[in-house]
């Protein structure tokens, strides 16, 4: 304002005219404001997806290792006919489902306690505790789990101290399941908490007044209202597990490869077209998952 006043009346008039023009045509302002982010979004986000889909139909010349830019189904046919890739895809999906279920079971009571039982100060403390692991690097947490689960690690030390035998979890799929469930838990707790917190107290009172016991209230009132939160959380846990390759590489043993590990290997080979073809599998799975999640109202709880 001050600069405008100093610059004199002509400039001030131009500015007024401009703001009037924007006021008369609100869509113009909106377009100008959104143009840059929209272009960035389309180029960066959709562009990379398109590049992925397009290159999945190319293939690599086995002698020179160069990409041949000719359309073919070679990669998809290899994926379909080699049962190794089926095994890896199912392992990945199965793990994502197991981790999601585990996190839902663990997160629900915790989130319920935080949202409806804990006093204010304790709630704040619990929030900090849930989020605390996110302050440290994901890698650090995976490495520390490797130390815990190692043969000479903390877990076996504790078990042996109690006179129990070794757990033998190091470098197994069980180890991966534990680590995944741990690292993604906060992503389930938060949306479930948000959903539970939004349930009005009066609903629960009404349920009680109508004679429903605690179990029935939970089953018919709380759970259906918390479902969108659970589904929203499951999108995180499911997709994060589906796309991961670091945990399998670091805590998984022989026979623990995920889709992501194969994609990483193939990119390095380098056989980017095949990597792209395999990478479309999680994209399709997630697309289906999101459609189902939308039906269940997950996006209302985000």
């Amino acid at each position: 304002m001050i600069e405008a006043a100093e610059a004199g009346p002509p400039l001030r008039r131009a500015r007024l005219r401009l703001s009037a023009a924007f006021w008369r045509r609100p869509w113009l302002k909106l377009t100008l404001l959104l143009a840059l982010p929209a272009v960035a979004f389309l180029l960066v986000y959709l562009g990379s997806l398109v590049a992925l889909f397009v290159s999945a139909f190319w293939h690599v010349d086995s002698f020179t290792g160069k990409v041949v830019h000719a359309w073919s189904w070679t990669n998809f046919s290899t994926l379909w006919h080699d049962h190794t890739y089926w095994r890896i895809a199912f392992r990945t999906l199965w793990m994502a489902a197991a981790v999601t279920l585990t996190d839902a079971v663990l997160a629900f009571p915790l989130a319920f306690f935080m949202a409806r039982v804990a006093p204010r100060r304790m709630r704040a403390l619990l929030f900090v505790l849930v989020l605390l692991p996110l302050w440290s690097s994901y890698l650090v947490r995976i490495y520390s789990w490797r130390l815990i689960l190692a043969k000479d690690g903390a877990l076996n030390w504790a078990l042996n101290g109690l006179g129990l035998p070794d757990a033998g979890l190091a470098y197994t799929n069980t180890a991966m399941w534990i680590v995944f469930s741990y690292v993604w838990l906060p992503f389930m707790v938060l949306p479930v908490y948000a959903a539970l917190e939004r349930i009005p107290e009066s609903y629960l009172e009404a349920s009680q007044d109508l004679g429903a016991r605690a179990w029935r209230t939970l089953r018919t009132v709380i759970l259906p209202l918390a479902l969108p939160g659970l589904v929203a959380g499951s999108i995180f846990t499911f997709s994060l597990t589906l796309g991961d390759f670091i945990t399998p590489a670091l805590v998984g043993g022989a026979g623990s490869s995920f889709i992501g590990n194969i994609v990483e290997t193939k990119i390095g080979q380098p056989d980017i077209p095949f990597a792209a073809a395999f990478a479309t599998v999680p994209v399709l799975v997630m697309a289906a998952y999101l459609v189902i999640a939308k039906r269940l109202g997950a996006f209302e709880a985000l």
Partner: protein
Amino acid sequence: MSKRHRRVLGWSATALLVGALAFTAAGCGSSKKSSSGNGSNLPTSIGKGEGALNLIEWPFYSDPSFAKTFERESGCKIHRKDAGSSNQMVALMRAGGGGGGGQWDLVSASGDASLRLIKGGDVKAVNVDLVPSWKQFIPIFKSPAHNTVDGVHYGVSVQWGPNVLLYNNQKVKPGPTNWNALYDPKYKGQITIPNNPIQIADAAFYLEHSKPSLGITDPYELNKAQFDATIALLKQQRHLVKLYWNYDTDGRAAFANGDVSLGAIWPVDTLALQAKKVPVTEVIPKEGATGWADTWMLAKRAPHPNCAYAWMKYVTQPQVEAKQALVFGETPVNPKACPYMDKIQAGSCAKYHLNEPLAYYNTIKFWKTPIADCGNGKSDCMDYNAWQNAWTQITG
């Protein structure tokens, strides 16, 4: 405009955009032309440095303890990118249109990557006359099959190391003396193996000695029958393996934490574990072992070729070779480094086998990228693509 109309319009706009992007992507891709390198147009002298040198390297391959002097003397400031695997090196060299993308000058490629880079036209011929120490190299490292094709050098050898059999001497008694320990069901769940398709050669090398009827003479040149027998052996081994390590530090950790008690790993890991008082013993069985040998290769589109030549000249000198060998835990290709190694660390020249006779070197089968051309006039060998796919089937 009705809601439905608007939605149709939105979808068509998206489809149009996706189509346009696809077209552009396809167009960009197909416009690239490739040409292969040849021996002509080699520089005859090293010109003035360009002030910078961009390296793709194994960690510590331009360690400041010896690179500082180079930077000061040549004025070439080193920018380094540490790679974790041979695949990553190839991928970095291929990025940005290949040939190092106009960004990278040199890559310290191991034998399982070097032929891929040569065949893919990502590296170019090097005039070894500009690297005086080259004449001092142990003969087998002057023109090894993994970096010299048809007499054309695509880089200079730098260092090498064997793949050794390592075991925990408290848990495995008596200690194994032969590679068959890694295929012995007695050690189920205690074995670690590198997660690298080139590892197929280790199994082939074992079969070369244990099953002469297969007629394997070179573990990197396997015909279909030999390859299938090797893969069958590896599929049995898979049930004994606790961990396929991706980085040697992972294998090292598994030894340190007691998760594995024997496996294939590198001398640098033996030294690190022994320094941490982990009771491990390293063996190179009398049949020999596979080994890796690294080459500084010149990127086809190197932006700083003079600095690159200056680096190749510098890093192969005996004093520098000795320093690098002891920083990383590997063996120089220049035997004149021996006294310098002993000066830094008494007895280290013998410890790293630099003073061994040629007969010793002949027991080491150095990594090279498998190609269809068997070197015997036939082209029925399994190429690296087949090796990679088989490895995925074994470990995946």
